[in-house]
């Protein structure tokens, strides 16, 4: 049984300009009493998520919609525990996997095989279980002998195949995905879609941020609309129209 609940969660984060990121300038500011230097403190605070509450249970597949900068990615990172809320509480039960930017922890000097183990271990596998995933990834990526070569020799499509295969070989109970990505050529794309859908159907809770409404209709059973850091749940019927 997996759950994911937000209790009046708010998150503001600062965006620093180059001056505010300089220790030298900060020290000068203190040294001059902060009067002349008051202009250098250009810290903009973004209120990304504003008093959001909801509860997700087993079987929930949520589509996150909203225009660019509405806070979709921030909300996903809060769900994953990568960002900590400024106020409120995020409580999750169950193992979480995220697909935001692919290829975290990849070292292009190392071979495909070494990178598979490395990335899987980063995602929480032990070395042994990571190695057990290799045959499946070998078969899916169709990279063959290339897996023995350093990843820097791969084309971007090949790299994408590898990263996608690694990301989808995790078995989480809560899955968070930010925007679907195009994977390789047409024939492979279909294969990737199939693997993706199978993967999604196996998890307890699924959250998916996307601009592609058709895909959301196909994959999700609840829809959250984000607007200026607020979350409104839309009924699926309204959304379909």
């Amino acid at each position, binding site marked *: 049984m997996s759950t994911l609940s937000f209790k009046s969660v708010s998150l503001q984060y600062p965006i*620093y300009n180059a001056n505010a*990121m300089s220790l030298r300038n900060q020290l000068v500011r203190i040294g001059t009493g902060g009067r002349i230097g008051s202009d250098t403190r250009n810290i903009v605070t973004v209120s990304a998520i504003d008093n959001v509450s909801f509860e997700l249970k087993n079987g929930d597949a949520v589509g996150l919609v909203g225009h660019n900068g509405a806070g979709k990615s921030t909300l996903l990172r809060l769900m994953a525990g990568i960002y900590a809320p400024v106020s409120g509480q995020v409580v999750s039960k169950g193992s979480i996997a*995220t697909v935001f930017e692919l290829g975290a922890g990849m070292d292009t000097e190392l071979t495909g095989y070494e990178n598979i183990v490395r990335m899987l271990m980063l995602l929480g596998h032990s070395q042994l279980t990571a190695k057990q995933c290799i045959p499946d990834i070998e078969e899916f990526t169709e990279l063959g002998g290339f897996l023995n070569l350093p990843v820097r020799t791969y084309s971007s499509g090949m790299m994408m195949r590898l990263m996608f295969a690694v990301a989808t070989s995790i078995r989480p109970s809560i899955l968070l995905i930010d925007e679907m990505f195009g994977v390789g050529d047409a024939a492979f794309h279909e294969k990737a879609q199939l693997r993706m859908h199978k993967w999604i159907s196996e998890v307890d809770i699924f959250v998916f941020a996307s601009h592609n409404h058709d895909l959301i209709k196909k994959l999700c059973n609840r829809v959250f609309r984000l607007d200026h850091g607020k979350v409104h749940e839309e009924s699926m019927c309204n959304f379909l129209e």
Partner: protein
Amino acid sequence: MNLFIRDLIFSFRRMPFVWHMALGDTRARYKRSFLGPLWMTLGATIGVVGLGLVWSSILNQPRAELIPSLTIGLLLWQFISACINESSTVFVRNASVIRNVKTPFFIFPLQLLIRHLIGLLHNSIIIIVVLIVYPPPVISSVMILSLFGLILVVLNLLWMIMLLGMLGARFRDLEQIISAFMPIVFFLTPVIFKADQIGLNSSIIWLNPFTYFMSLVRDPLYGRVPSLTIYLVTLLIMLLGWLLTMYFFNKRSARLAFWI
């Protein structure tokens, strides 16, 4: 539970991963070149031989005395300064991981430390060769204390990397500030000379924590037990440093993902 303690516990649970990453980094360096990290060892050897020959005549000291102490000092300094120099970017360089996967923060300083420990292990070949060519006057069980000293040094470096890493993520010019100051710290650390050669004006040398680290590792190899003061000061630095790091971490670590 205390955020800091929890992060430490979770990080140590992921030690196999940290080892794997550090070994992978080392292996990647072997791939780029035939000698790999041994290039560093070669560079260090040339440095030790060159400096040993020059300084033994300048300082008017017998080579058999200077070269071993210089070797150990120089290699230990290389290890310490590499850790400190890279500390400020330890989180920035791992931004893609931190922003995409939920991981405890301490695994990154640990990875940095272990990678450089592996480098030190490579370089210890030189120490062994030098100790064979210029054997220490007495071989005693005191030498084990050197290993204990190294552990104390590593425990101190860990909090330093964490603290500087957090500061370096928030203030990006810290990297330049550190690399500007490290050469001065080198001259204030008894690497080439010995702390007791300076005479009475050595108080500034003893204000430098790295002086203590040097004694802890180097002195026992010559059968000298570092004085109790040196141990106490090191332990005090360690205690205060960890408390300071814990304070900063508990206050600021939630913001770290935004800084990078």
